[in-house]
Each structure stands twice: as structure tokens, then as C-alpha cells.
């Protein structure tokens, strides 16, 4: 029997909930406290908890370092491409500025575009923050070998 059975079972229960909570914080972010930054950290924490309980090797298999590296860049691209898209979409005909979300949706009165813009940008932030947090964790934790089970 594994020496930390309880930890493993509990964390298996907790990790999905942490991730779901992360997404709640994420999608609540355009009209309440929350947003991509906090959500990204929460989601990264889920993976870090997994790594702490099941070891670096397992975590690396679940979320490979390559994914982390490309994720960090991808988030920046999502964010920036929203900005670039607003340059070319020109919602109501008049030229709009970089990151002017109103361009994203024709409904100017309700400012639906603002909601879309915030959600999309926050998605980019989420991707980058989660990836960068994991990248930092991998970079430091990966340099020392895991503590073997007997030494717990």
C-alpha cells in the first residue's frame, strides 16, 4: 500500500474541482472579480499539486514541458491577435484603435463586443499565466530529483 494513499485519493478528488473553479474564475472575469490571471494561477496550482503528490515524472507526462513552452507563446498570440483583429474589423464603419473591443460585435448599443473582447483576451492571459507558472515550477523543481517514497 502506498505510504500516502489518503493524499493521493483526496487530491484526485480535489484536482478536478480546482480546475473547474479556475474556469469559473476565468469566465466570471468580465463582469465580476476574477479573470485570466487568477484563473491561470489556479489551474497551474492544480498541476503543481499533481506534481507534488504523484511526482515530477507523472506531471511531465500529463502536461509536457513542450506544451508549457508553446502555451506561453500561444497565449500572447491570442491576446495580440484580438488587438490586431480589432484593427481590421472596423465594427461600425469608422476606424477603431488597437484593442478596441467594440469592433468585435456589430451591436454597439449593448457593447456586446466589449464582452467578447474581454473574454478572448482573458483566455490568452489564462493560457500564458498557467503556462508560465508551470514553466517556472518545472524549471526549478526539475533540477532536483524527486524524494523517494521511503524517505517521506
Amino acid at each position, binding site marked *: 500500500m502506498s505510504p500516502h494513499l489518503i493524499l493521493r485519493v483526496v487530491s484526485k478528488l480535489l484536482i478536478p474541482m480546482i480546475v473547474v473553479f479556475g474556469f469559473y474564475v476565468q469566465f466570471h472575469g468580465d463582469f465580476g472579480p476574477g479573470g485570466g490571471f487568477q484563473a491561470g494561477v489556479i489551474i497551474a496550482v492544480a498541476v503543481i499539486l499533481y506534481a507534488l503528490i504523484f511526482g515530477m515524472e507523472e506531471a511531465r507526462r500529463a502536461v509536457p514541458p513542450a506544451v508549457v513552452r508553446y502555451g506561453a507563446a500561444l497565449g500572447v498570440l491570442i491576446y495580440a491577435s484580438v488587438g490586431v483583429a480589432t484593427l481590421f474589423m472596423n465594427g461600425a464603419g469608422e476606424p477603431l484603435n488597437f484593442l*478596441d473591443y*467594440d469592433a468585435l460585435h456589430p451591436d454597439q*448599443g*449593448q457593447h456586446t463586443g466589449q464582452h467578447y473582447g474581454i473574454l478572448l483576451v482573458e483566455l490568452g492571459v489564462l493560457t500564458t499565466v498557467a503556462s508560465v507558472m508551470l514553466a517556472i515550477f518545472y*524549471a*526549478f523543481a526539475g533540477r532536483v530529483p524527486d524524494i523517494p517514497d521511503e524517505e517521506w
Partner: protein
Amino acid sequence: MLEIILERFSYIPIIILMMTGLYVVIATGNLVKRLVGLSLFQTSVFLLYITMGKVFGGQPPIIAGDAHGGDAGHGADAAAGYGAEAAAGHAAETAHHVAEIAYSNPLPHVLILTAIVVGVATLAVGLALVVRIREAYGTIEDDALNAADYSLETGSAE
């Protein structure tokens, strides 16, 4: 005299933290401890900004009511108008709508959120450098590093 100090009591912990941080950066020879001092120093600035945003008797700067209410009229319903107006990109215009209720200033918080991210990035890069320095030199004490470099310089200079 006492009154002046008490009026500005929030600055006292900030100054103490700031000076502690700066002192640690200067005084310690250990690279990790120096980063700790640096973080302390930065944190004191975060506090400085946060206290700046506090308004006595101020409400949290969240508008109650229907933020989705569309263009709820200019000033007729200041609370609902704020969300729509702000979204419309005329934040300056709304200043007089919200003037009736005292709100704490949210801007310093936003700035500090950015500054915290900068601080985290700096700390991560700093620690990564310390890890690499330790791998290259086998020590993270300033004196030992200087000694190692000095012997390198004199050793290679025929």
C-alpha cells in the same frame, strides 16, 4: 508632532519594510537572501500604492445594479449608467456621475497587480540565475564568487 506621525501611520510600516529590504540587499553576501531583500523592497512599494488608493469612508468601487442595462441614460441612473458608459470608453465623462458616492480608488490596485507580475518575473529570473550560478561556481556566496573569478582572471593572464 505626534499628530503628524499618527496621521501618516500607514507610511511607518512601509518605510520600515522598505529600509529592511534595501538593507538586506546591501548587507548580505548570499545571493538568495539578496533576492529576498529585493522582494521585500518591492512589496513595500506595493503597500505604498495600495494605501494611496484607500479613501476614508470610501465604498468598494463596484457599481451595484444591472451592468448589462445598455445605455441607461446619461446621469438619470448614475449607478447603471456607470457600467454602460465605462464600457463605451468615456471614463472621463462618468467622473461626475460617481462623484456623489465616495469610492476607494481602484486604479492603484490595478497598477500594483501589474507591478506584482513584474516582481514575480524578476524574482523568477533572479532565482533562475542563482541556480545557474550555483551550477557554474558551486557556491552562492558573494565572497566565494569574487574569489573564484579573481583566480580565473589571474590564472588565465599568463
